[in-house]
């Protein structure tokens, strides 16, 4: 990330969001809202003094998935690029009460600027790569697993932060009361492969669950249970890793965790979390008392995928992820020419696959720009200006925003037109024809097809 930040041809607009995209391949106009972070990027050196002195503390950190805390002025995480903090105005004493201002007073560079406002930047770009990633399934939606109700039931991301040496516990695996767990259960497929939520496999979770087991083993003596539907160790070296964990003494139970409860049925269950499941290899219902449960929550399309798809003219597949133009032949292209997708926004995938796809998207985008021209579809819409009344019906109807009214007449942007013919059907004055699919051609074709043939 640091080298991206330093690259002379790359400008990072962090804390920014694309609000509007217009134009077409080679000529996109993109409006980006750069949110006010209330710290001047040019002046700030990232020394961190403001963050250290800020009195508004114990705010749950988003980066630490809520198991660590941050201040009201904070750097999202230690390696953040750019190394510039942001003020969370909802928790900042200055913004809420008009008092404090400690960060501003103490900043040696005078970089804190409470008056800063959002800035809208307009960019002219030739191609766009969307790589907006995923959201994690929120296990509150599956209350049977006790998340948010029972202590020591964690999501995968919470655990990921806990096990991280730079995380809030310094990499120690700890229960709420500060003890180390003696038994840990990792439940696969929470929110994935489940008719109630997402039917698809989230693909990454089997492997991160194995990784978790391995990491817990490294720092504790805990007994670990992995409850899985079936193991999907699909990638290079992955099956070998699974084998290794089998040897490390992790207990694998083939059966999806059905419930996590604190309803005890015997003295050995007192004070424990009980994981209920059907062990399909034993053919038995089991109750497994543990101290900690990690829910391997699946990957989902981001909450705002609908809006983002709309902004960039993307389609989505039935699962809600962005849709590629063709699963094999055009995996990073989309229905909108010049707009590419990469990473988990296209579907659940791990880092190696994400990096591969990102590389592909970059190369295709660069190749397109390098050529400097694009091949057009032969069958595109053409407007007969004499006939066009300028009513604008076609402009509204075009799914690719390829038509505009210019000087009172419809004008087709040839690079954006996909030749779908929607405008032709909508035109009240019959002023639009689709090249190679003209009325005359279609009628002739029908005549031919419906011709009576004498059969001898």
């Amino acid at each position, binding site marked *: 990330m640091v080298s991206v930040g330093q690259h002379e041809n790359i400008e990072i607009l962090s804390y920014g969001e694309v609000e509007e995209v217009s134009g077409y391949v080679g000529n996109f106009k993109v409006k980006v809202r750069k949110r006010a972070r209330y710290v001047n990027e040019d002046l700030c050196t990232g020394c961190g003094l403001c963050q250290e002195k800020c009195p508004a503390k114990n705010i749950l950190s988003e980066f630490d998935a809520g198991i660590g805390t941050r201040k009201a002025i904070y750097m999202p995480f230690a390696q953040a690029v750019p190394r510039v903090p942001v003020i969370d105005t909802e928790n900042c004493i200055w913004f809420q009460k008009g008092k404090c201002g400690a960060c501003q007073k103490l900043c040696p560079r005078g970089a804190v600027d409470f008056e800063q406002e959002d800035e809208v930047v307009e960019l002219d770009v030739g191609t766009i790569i969307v790589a907006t990633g995923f959201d994690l399934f929120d296990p509150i939606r*599956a*209350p*049977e697993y*006790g998340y948010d*109700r029972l202590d020591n039931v964690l999501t995968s991301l919470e655990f990921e932060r806990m096990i991280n040496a730079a995380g809030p516990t310094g990499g120690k695996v700890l229960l709420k009361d500060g003890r180390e767990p003696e038994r840990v259960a990792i439940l696969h497929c929470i929110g994935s492969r489940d008719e109630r939520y997402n039917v698809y496999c989230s693909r990454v979770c089997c492997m991160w669950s194995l990784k978790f087991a391995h990491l817990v083993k490294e720092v504790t003596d805990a007994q670990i249970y992995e409850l899985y539907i079936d193991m999907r160790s699909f990638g290079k070296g992955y099956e070998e890793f699974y084998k290794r964990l089998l040897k490390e003494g992790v207990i694998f139970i083939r059966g999806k965790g059905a*419930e996590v*409860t*604190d*309803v*005890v*049925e015997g003295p050995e269950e007192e004070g424990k979390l009980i994981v209920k499941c059907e062990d399909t290899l034993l053919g038995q219902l089991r109750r497994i008392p543990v101290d900690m449960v990690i829910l391997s929550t699946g990957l989902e399309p981001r909450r705002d995928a609908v809006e983002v798809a709309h902004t960039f003219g993307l389609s989505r597949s039935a699962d809600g992820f962005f849709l590629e133009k063709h699963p094999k032949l055009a995996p990073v292209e989309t229905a909108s020419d010049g707009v590419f997708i990469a990473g988990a926004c296209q579907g659940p995938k791990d880092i190696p696959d994400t990096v591969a796809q990102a590389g592909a998207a970059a190369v295709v985008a660069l190749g397109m720009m390098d050529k400097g021209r694009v091949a057009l579809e032969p069958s595109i819409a053409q407007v007969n200006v004499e006939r066009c009344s300028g009513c604008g019906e076609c402009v509204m109807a075009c799914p690719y925003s390829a038509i505009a009214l210019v000087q009172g007449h419809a004008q087709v942007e040839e690079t954006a037109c996909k030749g779908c013919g929607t405008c032709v059907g909508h035109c009240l004055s019959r002023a639009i024809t689709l090249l190679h699919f003209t009325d005359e051609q279609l009628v002739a074709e029908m005549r031919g097809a419906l011709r009576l043939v004498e059969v001898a």
Partner: protein
Amino acid sequence: MAYTYYPGCSQEVSTKAYNLSTWAVAGALGLELVELDDWNCCGTSPSYSLRSLSTFALNARNLGLAERHSPGCDLVTICNGCFGIMDKTNRRLAEDAELRERVGEALAVIDLEYRGSVRVRHLLEVLVNDLGQETIQEKVTHPLEGLQVAPYLGCAFSRPSGIDDAEFPTALGDLLSWIGADVVDYPLRASCCGGILMMSDKKEVALKLVHNLLADAVRRGASCLATACPLCHLNVEAYQGQVNARFGTDFSLPVLFFTQLLGVSLGLGREELGLGTELVSAAALLAPHMT
């Protein structure tokens, strides 16, 4: 808005208090119930398992009568069993043309038809969703402050109807908290009471389930259980003695219909609510809340 009311057989015999308290509470809350004329048994789950076609016909008769007598009105029931089977009848008839035809033939014999327009509801869900918190709280005169209630809904309230979260329904706890009760966090709220297994050769299974329900309620400090189904109610109340004998426990936990607790909070009297007919007396427990 009026509702067609279907009490179900149990409410005429073993759990009259549920029926009584339903009428009393509906009156006090201004919920207009019109009892379905000439209703018949829903067949219950045993008949459904053995003869589903005749069970669907039985239920279609009730639904057909409701459609004829009070078109446009929802049909409200207070029993999870009746609710489940009637709801299922509605769904199956809507999706299965062949079934529709066969049930239609059966109804034709008594000059009845059912076009599928009646929505089946559970009273609890009607109170929570149609009346809502404000309307109910306005009428509460005797909030159940300090009463530790475990909300026990049983398995068939939210499954498969989908009227509440299937695994962790909240309607009963919500209602009880609106009327001032201290609602005990009760994870077994949608667990099975054993149902009709209690009356079968698998009684052991049912006793174990009831034992778990009681043990966890007591452990979490409940001084009574609130129920929304006559069969659950019967199992967790009437079998406490057998559970004690089997597991060496000494449970003596009052079990009350949610309508009875609601009635108490609305200031209604013992008789109207069928109080005093419990097998484990709730008199002492409710005394501080009754005038």
